[in-house]
């Protein structure tokens, strides 16, 4: 791994703008083009929002965001100490549903899968959650995300 950089925040929706600024500033230095930066900014924002609102449920807790270049991908790892939440266990979002039958939420995970080539989840040895997002550094994304 080379050129990794890390941002640590305490869970608070007011810090989301700092998370976006971190990705916007650091991803280009790792070779990400405009499309890749935009996709990563949104994908990271969506996951960190989930951690703050549904992981820590409004309580303060640490969130660490690490950005690195690995091969053709910009890779983002996000770690937290909130109760485990496997995104693969969440019901899939159906963008075709009419207004009154749409769930009011769940779109964040759907967008992450749409925006990234890779979306992997694991529970670290000490508990909490860790995701790894991979997005090709240049051009349109190449594959569908999974987790």
């Amino acid at each position, binding site marked *: 791994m080379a050129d990794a950089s890390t941002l640590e925040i305490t869970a608070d929706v007011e810090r989301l703008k700092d998370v*976006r600024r971190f990705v916007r500033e650091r991803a280009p230095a790792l070779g990400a083009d405009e499309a890749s930066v935009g996709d990563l900014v949104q994908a990271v924002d*969506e996951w960190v929002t989930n951690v703050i609102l549904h992981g820590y449920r409004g309580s303060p807790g640490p969130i660490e965001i690490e950005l690195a270049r690995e091969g053709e991908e910009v890779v983002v790892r996000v770690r937290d100490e909130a109760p485990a939440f496997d995104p693969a266990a969440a019901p899939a*979002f159906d*963008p075709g549903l009419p207004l009154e039958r*749409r769930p*009011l939420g769940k779109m964040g995970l759907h*967008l992450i899968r749409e925006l990234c080539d890779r979306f992997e989840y694991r529970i670290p040895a000490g508990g909490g959650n860790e995701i790894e997002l991979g997005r090709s550094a240049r051009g349109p994304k190449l594959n569908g995300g999974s987790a």
Partner: protein
Amino acid sequence: MNTTVDRPSAGVAVLGLDGELDASNYRELIERGQALYAEGARRLILDLSRLTYMSSSGIVALHSLALVFRGQQPPDPEAGWSAFHAVSSDAAGGEAVDQVRLVAPAPSIAANLARTGLDRILPIFPDLEAALAA
């Protein structure tokens, strides 16, 4: 995010959004729309031309406002995963919601409206004049 309100007629409100819409401020947008509905507005035009970023929290706000302007009470979006069930009503039947109109979203925001299917529910206009005239 800063907002501006214009009332071109008694039943119409134009709400301009300037900046970034995310989980830190989307509830303010819902409350702003609810207040306009309570004041008598029955059509809400959301001018997105100066909105530079919108997360899925913003999509939740637009969804909630669509329900408000259909005369319904939206569920609490922060009630947790357990609340993320389908809103139970068969009234919609898939038709567009003409009471809430979107104006000039940036390409990245328009792409997310498409990814979440909201572009098939809320009409999108290229400029304010078109949204007011339709």
